[in-house]
């Protein structure tokens, strides 16, 4: 046997063996392997994509403008304090992203601009209008996305998902992938909740408060707000408490007039825990404030005994208990007929903190676990049937040479699976399609060679010469045709998301491996056959 052939054989065997080793984690064999194997050998294998194992793929957009708006409001509140301290009389109002101050006096302007250099004047004639400068608002938006990412990561960590993927995409988007989540709705709620916790005093003293209806049905909120616009005091707003009738499941909304200015906010919390009410055995969330929060809570409750304090999460009132006495110690509770799960999720979002700005959901692709399982089964069956059909066809058409091509095909499949396992590539449903199509395409190189060999035989060459020149002449054709497929696969990889990327991976790996098996594998078998004795006839 020639040395060259020997080397090829060694190469084939080594790659084959490596493929099997890498693929073992994807077979039921792994648990039966000896201890040393489990410790030292690859254990991850091919990873199933979200579409096959079930799970969520979410894309959120952080509404950076809202973060800028929140900052603007905060600065406006501080400006009021500043003017009071400096004995300046000025009206401060926020209008979306801008702060309007009247009158436009030089000393006021100086006070603002000295203390808040990030504010850029928009208007200075009859009144002063400021906006947060472009550069600064860009920074706020940027930080908001980063903070949101961090908060989401915290929430998911506490929620408990195996191998989540959370990353930033572009300027203000966050991609969250949660494989194998059983209750997608709950996970989405948990992640997407802004969780802005506020304590606001209920304004029962205003006359108009008595005119509010007892309750309304959901959907009429905006209408009611419009009706009362202008009638309610300027420093108040209407928010709603959601009440669910436990027997009928009917939802009612109770409007309450509350102060716009929050007495306390969630950033003063130090902890949030789920507890069970001993009387009704209903879960509730108990809150602990940090030192500053505890002190503030004591002050607020002390100054407002017999008034109601609304506990508000994301502009929905959870409850509005009457303050019976001054509350020291820095503890509060959120009750509101929660299920255990709801209470647990609420405590998670409160612990992990609020998002710096609300998020909008841009994309949600959820696949249930059963669909994924069915898809894998269907893919396996289609793959096996397709392979058998090709194998039979090749033997019928090319006889012994067909068997050689089938051997190359078999090698091709093993190496493809091995390579995917070695790369820990993600297998998606289109990826399965890619593998199956690769099987159909795998024999093409051999077909090209065989047809060429047949032509050479017809031209009167000896079998050995026919093999050699057929192989040689087919080589560049095979090369060119494979490169074109690789180019399209590369494009697919570049443009595709998730599942389609998986397709591109299997397709390009399949094509590359196909080059290897056809050019090295098939050829060396012919060489071996030919090296023993000169063939009289080629079964092709």
């Amino acid at each position, binding site marked *: 046997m020639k040395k060259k052939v020997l080397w090829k054989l060694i190469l084939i065997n080594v790659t084959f063996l490596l493929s099997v080793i890498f693929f073992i984690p994807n077979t039921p064999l792994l648990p039966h392997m000896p201890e040393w194997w489990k410790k030292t050998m690859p254990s991850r294998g091919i990873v199933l994509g979200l579409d096959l194992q079930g799970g969520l793929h979410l894309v959120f957009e952080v509404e950076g403008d809202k973060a800028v708006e929140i900052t603007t409001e905060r600065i406006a509140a501080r400006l009021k304090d500043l003017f009071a301290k400096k004995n300046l009389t000025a009206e401060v109002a926020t209008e979306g992203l801008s702060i309007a101050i009247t009158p436009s006096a030089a000393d006021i302007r100086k006070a603002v601009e000295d203390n808040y250099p990030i504010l850029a004047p928009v208007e200075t004639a009859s009144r002063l209008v400021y906006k947060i400068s472009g550069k600064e608002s860009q920074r706020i938006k940027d930080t908001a996305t980063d903070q949101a990412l961090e908060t989401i990561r915290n929430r998911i960590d506490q929620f408990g998902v195996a191998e989540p993927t959370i990353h930033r995409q572009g300027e203000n988007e966050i991609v969250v992938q949660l494989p194998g989540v059983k209750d997608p709705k709950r996970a989405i709620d948990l992640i997407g909740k802004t969780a802005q916790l506020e304590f606001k005093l209920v304004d029962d003293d205003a006359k108009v408060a008595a005119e509010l209806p007892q309750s309304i049905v959901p959907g009429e909120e905006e209408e009611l707000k419009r009706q009362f616009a202008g009638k309610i005091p300027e420093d108040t707003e209407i928010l709603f408490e959601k009440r669910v009738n436990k027997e009928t499941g009917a939802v009612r909304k109770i409007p309450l007039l509350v102060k716009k200015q929050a007495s306390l906010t969630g950033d003063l919390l130090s902890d949030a825990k789920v507890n069970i009410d001993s009387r009704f055995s209903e879960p509730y969330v108990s809150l602990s404030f940090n030192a500053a929060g505890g002190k503030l809570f004591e002050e607020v409750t002390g100054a407002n005994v017999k008034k109601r304090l609304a506990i508000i999460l994301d502009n929905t009132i959870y409850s509005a208990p009457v303050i019976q006495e001054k509350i020291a110690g820095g503890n509060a509770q959120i009750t509101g007929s929660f299920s255990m799960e709801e209470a647990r999720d609420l405590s998670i979002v409160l612990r992990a903190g609020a998002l710096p700005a609300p998020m909008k959901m841009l994309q949600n692709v959820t696949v249930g676990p059963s*669909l994924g399982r069915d898809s894998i089964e269907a893919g396996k069956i289609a793959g096996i049937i397709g392979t058998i059909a090709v194998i039979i066809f090749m033997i019928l058409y090319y006889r012994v040479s067909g068997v050689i091509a089938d051997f190359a095909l078999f090698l091709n499949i093993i190496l493809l699976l091995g390579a995917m396992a070695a790369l820990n590539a993600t297998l998606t449903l*289109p990826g399965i399609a890619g593998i*199956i*199509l690769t099987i*159909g395409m795998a024999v093409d190189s051999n077909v090209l060679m065989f047809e060429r060999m047949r032509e050479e035989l017809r031209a009167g060459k000896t079998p050995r010469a026919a093999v050699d020149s057929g192989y040689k002449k087919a080589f560049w*054709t095979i090369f060119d045709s494979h490169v*074109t497929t690789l180019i399209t696969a590369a*494009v697919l990889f570049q*443009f595709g*998301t998730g599942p389609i990327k998986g397709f591109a991976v299997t397709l390009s790996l399949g094509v590359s491996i196909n080059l290897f098996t056809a050019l090295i594998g098939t050829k060396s078998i012919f060489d071996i056959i030919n090296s023993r004795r000169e063939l009289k006839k080629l079964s092709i």
Partner: protein
Amino acid sequence: MIELIRNPNIDFLGKRNIAFFISGIFVIIGIIAIVQISTGRANLGIDFAGGTAIQLKFERHIALQAVREALESSGLRDFDLQDLPTENKVLIRVKTTEQELGQVSASITDIISQKLPDHQYVVDSTMVIGPKVGGRLRADAAKAVAMAVIGILIYVAFRFQFKFGVGATVAAFHDILVVLGIFFLSGKEINLILVSALLTIFGYSLTDTVVVFDRIRENLKLRQRDSVERVMNGSINEVLSRTIITTLTLLLTSIALFFFGGEVLHDFSLAIIIGIIVGTYSSVFVASPVVLLWGGKKPFAKK
């Protein structure tokens, strides 16, 4: 030796006018399809159009009409239903709505649970795509096709000659248009998976074409005295059996995928099957004639 065709000698290029006529019709349909897609008038999938698609798997058979009535009576508008009766699956699609994203799928499951309490179900899959993402995915898909076309044009022009690059690209693009046109005409959904099928077809069509071109290149060197058209015809005939056999093996696997590969890959494999057939046709009847037409006047470099 089994042979499909013994020493074929078909005048493929002589039939180019008929081929151009047939292809022309399909290409026009394909172009119409692209125009309709870009203006949003085709049956775009949720991933391109934006909206909500939710697939429910019921425990036992449920009449589509019952689902329709339940949803309509709850005030859901502009939805369409599709069912897979063999597996008790129902697909509900709601295109763009004013409701907050994510609310739609929740309200659909709420409605079904309330109105059809006797029918237990699990949610097989949910897809919610905001209009912004839909637009982006559409643009990405168009970009991908453009990139593939340019990449191939360059590679084939580099390996062969520019006119061959044009021929190969025109043929492959022709295949995409034909499949897209057929899908458009039959009202099938145009979505991301179809685009990846189209790009795969693009790749396979090129493989076929490159094999033909390769032989033409070789024969141009060997048979310097023959006319280019004769060389082309001869080359196509020489590789004809390979073309047919590879088409057959590819068809075997894609047909297996079509019948056994599961619902999600159904349309994908259908597109591939059509594409393989069209791709084979185009590598014979479109690619070479285009080369001849494009560069026939100029000398063919016999490199």
